[in-house]
C-alpha cells in the first residue's frame, strides 16, 4: 500500500509511490540512488545522513519519506550547484583545502551542517562552529581540520560577497 509523494531533490522534481514507513534516507539512497547521503546509526545521533530540507540541516534517518512530501531537498550531490560558481561549493572547497576529511563517511553530512551554519551565521567563531557541528560525529579527524575548513569557507564566501 504505497503513498505517492513528490519532492524537489537537488532541483529536480521526483515523484514516487513509497511505503509509508520508508525513511527519507532510504528513499534518497535506494529509490533515487543518491548514495552520497550516508547512514551511520539510524538513531539520529551521528549526523551522517544530514541533508538540507527547505534550507535547514536535518537528519534524514529521523524523517519518513512521506514527511518530506512537497519539500525541497538538497543532498551532497546537489550542493555544488548551490555554490553558484559552477565549481565546488566554498564549504566543499574548504574541506579539500584544509584536509577536513579522512575516510569521508561523515563528510557529506558535516558539509551540509556547515552550509546551514554559514547561511545563518556567516562569520562564526570557532566555538560556534564546534557547537553547530556537534550533532555530526566524525571518528577520524578530531574535528580541528573540519573547523579550519568551515572558517576557510566563511572567509571565501565573505570575500565573494564583497
Amino acid at each position: 500500500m504505497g503513498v505517492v509523494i513528490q519532492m524537489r531533490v537537488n532541483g529536480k522534481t521526483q515523484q514516487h509511490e513509497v511505503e509509508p514507513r520508508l525513511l527519507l534516507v532510504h528513499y534518497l539512497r535506494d529509490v533515487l540512488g543518491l548514495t552520497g547521503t550516508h547512514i551511520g546509526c539510524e538513531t539520529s545521533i551521528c549526523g551522517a545522513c544530514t541533508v538540507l530540507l527547505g534550507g535547514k540541516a536535518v537528519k534524514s534517518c529521523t524523517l519518513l519519506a512521506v514527511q518530506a512530501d512537497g519539500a525541497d531537498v538538497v543532498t551532497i550531490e546537489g550542493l555544488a550547484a548551490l555554490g553558484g560558481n559552477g565549481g565546488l561549493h566554498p564549504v566543499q572547497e574548504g574541506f579539500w583545502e584544509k584536509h577536513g576529511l579522512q575516510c569521508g563517511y561523515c563528510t557529506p553530512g558535516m558539509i551540509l551542517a556547515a552550509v546551514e551554519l554559514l547561511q545563518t551565521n556567516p562569520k562564526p567563531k570557532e566555538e560556534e562552529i564546534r557547537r553547530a557541528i556537534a550533532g555530526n560525529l566524525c571518528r577520524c579527524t578530531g574535528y580541528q581540520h573540519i573547523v579550519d575548513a568551515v572558517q576557510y569557507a566563511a572567509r571565501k564566501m565573505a570575500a565573494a560577497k564583497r
Partner: protein
Amino acid sequence: MATATRYMGRPLKRKEDPRLIQGLSHYVDDLRLPDMHYVVFVRSPHAHARIRSMDTSRAQTAPGVLAVLTGQDLGNAVGVIPCAAQLPEMKLALRPPLATERVLFVGEPVALVVAVDRYAARDAAELVEVEYEPLTPIVDPEKALARGAPVLHPQYSDNVAYRWELEGGDVGAAFQKADKVVRQKMVNQRLIPVALEPRAVVANYKPGENKLTVWSTTQIPHLLRTQIAAALGVPEYIVHVIAPEVGGGFGSKLNVYAEEVLVAHLAMRLGKPVKWTESRRENFQATIHGRDQIATMELAVKRDGTLLGLRCHILADLGAYYQLLTPLIPTLTGLMICGCYKIPAVRVEITGAFTNKMATDAYRGAGRPEATYFIERAIDMVAAELKKDPAEIRRKNFPKPKEFPYATPTGLIYDSANYPKSLDMALKKSGYRRLRAQQAKLRRQGRYLGIGLSTYVEICAMGPSSAMPAGGWESATVRIEPTGKVNILTGASPHGQGQETSFAQIAADLLGLEPDDIHVVHGDTAIVPYGIGTFGSRATAVGGTAVYTALVKIRDKLATIAGHILQEDPQRLVFRDKKIFLKSNPAKSVAFAEAVGAAYIAKALPAGMEPGLEATHFFEPSNFTFPFGAHVAVVEVDPETGEVHLQRYVAVDDCGNVINPLLVDGQVHGGIVQALGQAFLEEAVYDENGQLITGELTDYAIPRAWDVPRLETARTVTPSPVNPLGVKGVGEAGTIGATPALVNAVVDALAPFGVRHLDMPTKRERIWQLIRKFKPTGSRPATKRVGDGRGRRGRRKR
C-alpha cells in the same frame, strides 16, 4: 641519481577528496546490483544459553523471503572463523559462523534471512523463533577465573585462554634493592571502535565464469580473500575481494567476520547478488571491541627516582571466541610495558580470560595504548610518592639519544629516538613552569588545575614477518603505461589515511613527475598483487617502502634506457620536470615519455633488456619502528560537579620523516580525540547478565566537536634507520600518547583531595564521589564552582 624532494614533505591536499566531498565515491552499502537480495541476521539476545529449538517456518513464508538458514542448514558448508594467533598452550576457541548448540555472547548470529529488500528481511527475521535455555553468564573476568566458576567452553576445565610470560634482567634483585615499590591496579576499559561506516558486505557469484566477487568493508582484502576461500573450500583464484571506499576502520575491519564468509557463501548458494549492512546496534554487539585489560603494576625505584624494575600482571578479557588477532593483542602490551624508560629488569605475566562477551581485538593502538597508559600512570605515581616533578622522573630514566638502537629487556630493539628533545619541546610549548605556578595559585583560590604529562614510545610499521602471525611484508607494483602515466598498485588498503596522495608524492619525486601523473590503486585483489593491508601504522613505513623500492627499480631501468639513447652513463642522469637529463649538462636530455615509449616500442633497447615498464617489490622490514613523543594536557576539574574541562592539549610527536604534514596532523588530531574518548567518555558496559547496556550511540558517547579544544601540535624528526624513507608511522600515536596525559592531568588536579588514581573514563560522578569521600587530615581544600559563562569548552551534560 639524487632524488629532489619537491613533493615529499609538503602539505599537498588530497587526491582522494574530490570524489568524497561531492558524494561521488562508493562505499559498500552504496553498491546496487540487479536482482540484489538483502541479508538480515537473527542474533542471540542471551549472553550464555543453550539453543533448545529453532523454528524458521513462519519466516520462510513471509513476503519477499528467498531463504532462511540456521547453522544446522549450513552443515559444513562454511568453516569456522579464523584466528591467526598462535601462543604456546593457547586454548582454541573458534567460532562457528552461525551458532547451533549454544550462544556465548549477546549478538551472536543464530540464523539469517535473505529477502528482496531490507525491510522485508527485517520483518521476516522477527518471525524466526528460537527457544533458549539460559545458562549462567560469565561477565567479570576476575570471577571467570575464580575456582568453581562456570566454564564457558565445556571442553576445557576453566576459563583461562592462555598464560603468557616474559622476563628480562634480574627482577628479584631489582625489587630487593629498591628504596620504594609503587603498586597500583588499573583498568583499561573495554571500548567500541565505532568506525563511522558500519560494516557491510556485498557478494555476487557468476557460475559461468566461476567468479565470486566480494565487496567488503575491510582493511585486509587479500587476507580476507584467502580466508573466504578456505572457509568455503573453493580455490582462491575464484574469489575476488574489493575494499571500495571504506569509512574508517581503526582495527575493527582488520578481521575476518562470520558475516563476510556467510554472505559470500549465500551468493554462491542462492545464485543471486546479496548484501548485508550492519546496523549500529549490531556493530556494537558483534564487531570487535578493544582494550579490556586489568593490570597490576609494580615499579621498584631508588629514592632519587631511578627505575630499577617492573612487575606487571595483566588480566585480559578476551570475550567468548577469538577473532583474527584476539589473543595476541595483550602480548603487545607486555612487549611495550617499559615505555620509553630504561628499566633493567622486567617481568610480565598475562592471563587471557574467556567471558560471555564479544571478542576483543585490535582497536587503534592495539595493546600499546594499554602499555603506555599503565607505565605512564605508574611513573606519575612514582613522582607523587617521591615528591618529584613528573617531568624530571621521566627525563632521569630516558635512554640517551646516543644509546640507540636501544635494546629493551622485553627483547625489542628501539630503532632511533631523542626523548629529551620531545619532552623539552612539549614543556616549552605548553609553558610548563608557568602552568605549575598558575596551578599553585589557583589551588589557593579553590580551583583545581591539573597538568598531565605523557612521554610515549610505540611500536609501528608492523612488522618483520618473523614477528607477525601472517606475514609482515608489503607489496607494491609500479607500472608505467606507454603514455608515460604511472600506476602504483599497493598492497596497503587505506581507508582515510590518504596514501593515494602520499604515495603519489613519493613517486613524483623519484620520477621527476607531478602527483597528477600518478594513480594509486588499492583494495582490489584482482588488480593488486597479494598484499597484507593497512593496520599497525604500517602503510607508509612498510607499504610506502615497497612503493619506493619498486620505483627505484623502475627508475634504474629508465635511466639505463635514457643513458642508451643519450650515450651517457645512467648514473649521471637526473629525473626532473618530466625529463631525464645529464646532471652536468641539462641540455642533454630525453623526455620522460620518450624513454617510456622506448621501453614499449622496444626497437632500440640496450642489449638483453626486457621490454615493458613494470616493477614489483615485496618489502620485508628488518625491524619495527618506534615513534615517540611527549604530550601535555591541562584540565580544570570543577570540585562541585566533578566535571572535567580540557583547557589545552599540547602534542609533540616524532614519526620520523614526514611525507605529507597535513596527513600527519590529521592522524595525530584524530588519535588524540579518540584517546579523549577513552579517557573521559567511553566505556562498553555489560551488565551482570551479560547484556551490552551501552548498545547504541545513544548510550555510548564518542567525542563531539565541542568536547575538544584546539590542539597544539608540533614535531621533532628523528628518521628511522629501518627503511630508506626514514619514516616511522603515525596512525596510532594519538591514542597511545594521549590517554595517559589526559588521565594524569585529571589525577593531578585531584591531588589535593588525596586522589592517587582514578580509572577511566573519568566521569564526573566518579570524580564527585572521590571528592566527597575525601577526609582531609588538615583543613579541607577550598572548593569553588567553576562558573558558567567563562567560555570554557567541553560543557556537556550526560
